[in-house]
C-alpha cells in the first residue's frame, strides 16, 4: 500500500526547510582546530587581571607568557585536556580553571541556575493554569440568556475594546 501523499503546502514547506537544513549541516566543513587557543580560553591568567589566559592583553603581564609556555609544552607532550587541567590546578589551584568542574560541590554551580529557571517556569505555568481553571469555573455561574440585555451589551463592549486583536500594545 502506498503511503498517503502529503498535499498540504505547509507540510511541503516544512519538509523543504528540514531538507535544506540537513543538507547544509551535512556539508560540515571543519576548520583545523587549535588546542592551544581552546585551552587558553578555559584557563585563567594568574596575574590578577581576572581575564582568560588567551585574552589577557595587559601590558607587561608577568603570568601570561609562562602559563602559555607551560600550556604549549603540555600540548606538545600529548597530554589530554583533563591532564592539562590537572597540571594547572595542581600548580595554581582551582582558580586557574575558567569555569567550575562538574564534580562535587562545583556541580551545584551548573545545576542551580537551570533548576531555579525550571522550577520558576513550572510554578508559573501551574499558577496560570490554576487561575485559568478557577476563572472558567467561576464563569459558569450566570447564564447569559438570563442576563439583562443592557448588561450583556456592556460586557460585549468591554470585550470588544479589550480584545481587539493586537491593539493592546504597550
Amino acid at each position, binding site marked *: 500500500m502506498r503511503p498517503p501523499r502529503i498535499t498540504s503546502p505547509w507540510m511541503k514547506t516544512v519538509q523543504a526547510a528540514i531538507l535544506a537544513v540537513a543538507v547544509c549541516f551535512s556539508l560540515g566543513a571543519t576548520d583545523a582546530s587549535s588546542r592551544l587557543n581552546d585551552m587558553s580560553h578555559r584557563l585563567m591568567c594568574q596575574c590578577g587581571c581576572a581575564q582568560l589566559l588567551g585574552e589577557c592583553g595587559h*601590558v607587561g603581564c608577568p603570568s601570561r607568557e609562562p602559563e602559555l609556555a607551560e600550556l604549549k609544552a603540555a600540548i606538545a607532550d600529548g597530554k589530554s585536556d583533563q591532564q592539562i587541567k590537572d597540571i594547572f590546578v595542581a600548580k595554581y589551584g582551582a582558580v586557574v580553571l575558567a569555569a*567550575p568542574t562538574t564534580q562535587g560541590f562545583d556541580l551545584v554551580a551548573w545545576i542551580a541556575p537551570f533548576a531555579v529557571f525550571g522550577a520558576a517556569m513550572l510554578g508559573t505555568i501551574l499558577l496560570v493554569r490554576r487561575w485559568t481553571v478557577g476563572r472558567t469555573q467561576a464563569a459558569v455561574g450566570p447564564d447569559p440568556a438570563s442576563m439583562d440585555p443592557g448588561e450583556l451589551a456592556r460586557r460585549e463592549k468591554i470585550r470588544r475594546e479589550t480584545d481587539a486583536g493586537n491593539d493592546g500594545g504597550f
Partner: protein
Amino acid sequence: MAAFGSFALLIALALAGYNLLAGILALRLIATGQQARISPERLADTARRAGIASFIAVTAAAFALIWSVFTNDFSITYIMEHSNRALPGPYKFSALWSGQEGSLLLWAWLLAAYGFVLRLTHKTDVKLYAYAGTILAGIQVFFLLILNIAAPPFAIMRGAIPDDGNGLNPLLQYPEMVIHPPMLYLGYVGFSVPFCFALGALMMRYPGEKWIRVTRIWTMVTWLFLTCGIFLGMHWAYAVLGWGGYWGWDPVENASFMPWLTGTAFLHSVMMQEKKGMMKSWNVWLIFSTFLLTLLGTLLTRAGLVSSVHAFAQSSIGTWFVVFMGIVLAVCIFTYVLQRSHLKSEHHLESLVSRESSFLFNNLVLLTACFVILWGTLFPILSEYVVGNKVTMGAPWYNAVAIPIGIFLLFLTGVGPLLPWRATSFKSIRRNFVLPVIAFWATVIVCLATGVRPWKDGALNQGNFYALVAFSVSAAVMTAILSEFLRGAGVIARQTGRNLFASTWLLTRRNTRRYGGYIIHIGVVIVVVGLAGSAFNRSEERELALHDKLPIGPYTLECVGFTQDSNLNFNSEYALLDVYKDGKKQFQMTPEKRVYLASEQPQTMVAIHSVPSWDLYVVYEGTNPDTGQPIIKAFLNPLVGWIWAGLVILVWGTLIALVPNLSPATASVRVPARTAPTQPSLKGGSL
C-alpha cells in the same frame, strides 16, 4: 577648602537628618490625626525645604573637592592619591569618582540632585512626594554618614605635603571615563527614586495607579542612564583594556547589570498593573529588589568580597552597607506585611498564551538572568565557605548558562507583542507568526550556507551554535516588530493617504509608548546580532620588524615605523601600520603604549578601524625583551559596530517612549456626583 568641604558635608548631614525626622513626624501626625503645636503640613514643608537645602550643601562639598583637584591641593589625601599637576583638565573631573571617597561623594551629590528635583516637583502629588522625599532623606543620611565618618573625602595628609600627587589611574585616563561613571551612577542612584515612590505609596496605601505612572517615568529615565552607563563601560573596556572584548563578566560589570535586569522587568510588568490591576505585589518587590541590588553591588565591589578589575574602590565600608541593607530589607518586609491587603490583584491571567503571560514569562526570564549573574558572582564565596575551595566563574560558565536564557528572552521579545491581551486562538497565532517563522528558517539556511557551522569535528561548536540561533531568532523578532509597524502604518496610510514612512512616523507619535517600546526592541535585536558576532572573532599576534607584514582577514598590516613621544603626563611609543586590502593601501593605524609618569604605570591605547561588518582592532603590546622587536596583536572582530548602533536606537526608542502621545487617547469615565475633587493636600491616608 578642605575645611569648607568637610563643613558642607556636616551641614548636609544635619539637613538630611532634619528632613528625615521632621518628615516622619509630620507624616505620622497626619496619618493618626493627632494635634501638635506646629501644623503637620508646615512641618512637612520645612522637611522638604531642608531636603532642597541639603542638595546645595552637598553641591558645595563636591565643588570643594573639584576645586581642590584643580588647584592641586595635595594637603588633602584624596587629591594626593588621585591627581597630579600634569593631569589634563577633563581628567581632573574624573578624580572625583576615581577613588572610594570621591565616588561616594558623587553618589551623595546625585542622590541629593534627584531629591532636589523630586522635592521641587512636589505639587504633582503633595502627599506621595512627601513620603518619597522623606524616604529619600533616609538614604541621603546613610551616604552622608559614611562621608562624614567612614570615608571622608577631605581628610588631611599627615606629615609633609608632597609637591605632586600620585596621579590618576591610567585606566581612567580615557575620554569615556569622563562620562561613563557619572552616567552609570545616574542610573544606579536613580533607582532610589522609584524605590522611594513605591515604598511611600505602599506606606500610605496610595489609591489607584497614579504612583505607577509617576514611578514609570523616573524608572525609564534612570534605566536609560544605566543602559548608557553600561554600554559606555563596555566601549571603554573594549578601547582601553586591549583584550579585544567588551564584557568580561567582572563582578563590577555584573553589579551594574543586575539592577538593569530587574529594572527592565519592572518596566514591563508595570504595564500589567496599569492596564489590568495585576502583579501589584510583584511590581513593588521588583522595585525593592532593584534598589537592594544597587546596594548589594556596591557592597560586593567595595568591601573586597570579590576580586575585580575595579579594585580601586575597595575599602572597609562593607559593614555599613550590610547594616543599611538589613534596615532597608526590614522596612520593606514590615511595610509589605502591614499593607499587603492593598496590593490584591484585580484580575488574574485568563490564558497561558496571551500577552499577559508573555509579560509574566518575560519577567521570569529577566529575574532568572539576574539570579544567574548573582549566583555566578557569589558562588566563589559560597564555594570557599562550604568546601574551602575558591573557584573562578569566568566567561565559559556565563556563556554556557546565561546565553541560552538570553536567547529565550530575545524570543519572548518577539513573541510577546504578537499575542493579544487576555487570550488568543490558534488562527490568530498562525496569522501573526507566519512571517517571523519564515524569517527564522530563512536565516538558519542562509547562515548554514554561508559557513556558520554549529558543528566542528563532529562535536557541537558552542559559539557558532549560539550565534546561529541568535541570528535566526533576531531575524524572527525583527520581522515580528517590523510587521507590527507596517500593519499599523498601512491602516493610517489607507485612512490619510500619506506615504508609508509618514504613516509610520504618525503611528509612532500617536502611541509613543508602544512604538517607542518596539524601537527599543529593535535596538536590543541589533545589539544581540553584534554580540553574536563575537563567535567569529579572529586574532593574530606577531613580532613586527620594519616592513614586516601581518595578514588578518581581508587586511594586511605593514609596519612602516615605530616612534616615540612624550608630554608632561606620559611617555608613549607607538607603531605606524599601513593597512592594505586587495593590495591597495586603505589607511594607517597607530596603536600606542603609554607609561604615565606620576604613577609609572603602563597602558595600551588601542587603534580601532570600525566598519559595519567588523572592527580591525590593533594592540601595541610592547617590545620583546629578548629580541627588542615590537609585538603587535591584531583582532578582526565581526559586527562590533552593531552593538553601539543598537545602543543609539535603544536610546532613541526610550526617548520616544518618554514623549507624550500626539493625540491623547480619550475615554469616558463615569464620576459619581458626590466625589470630592482631589486636592493637593497632605490630609488622609495611613501609615
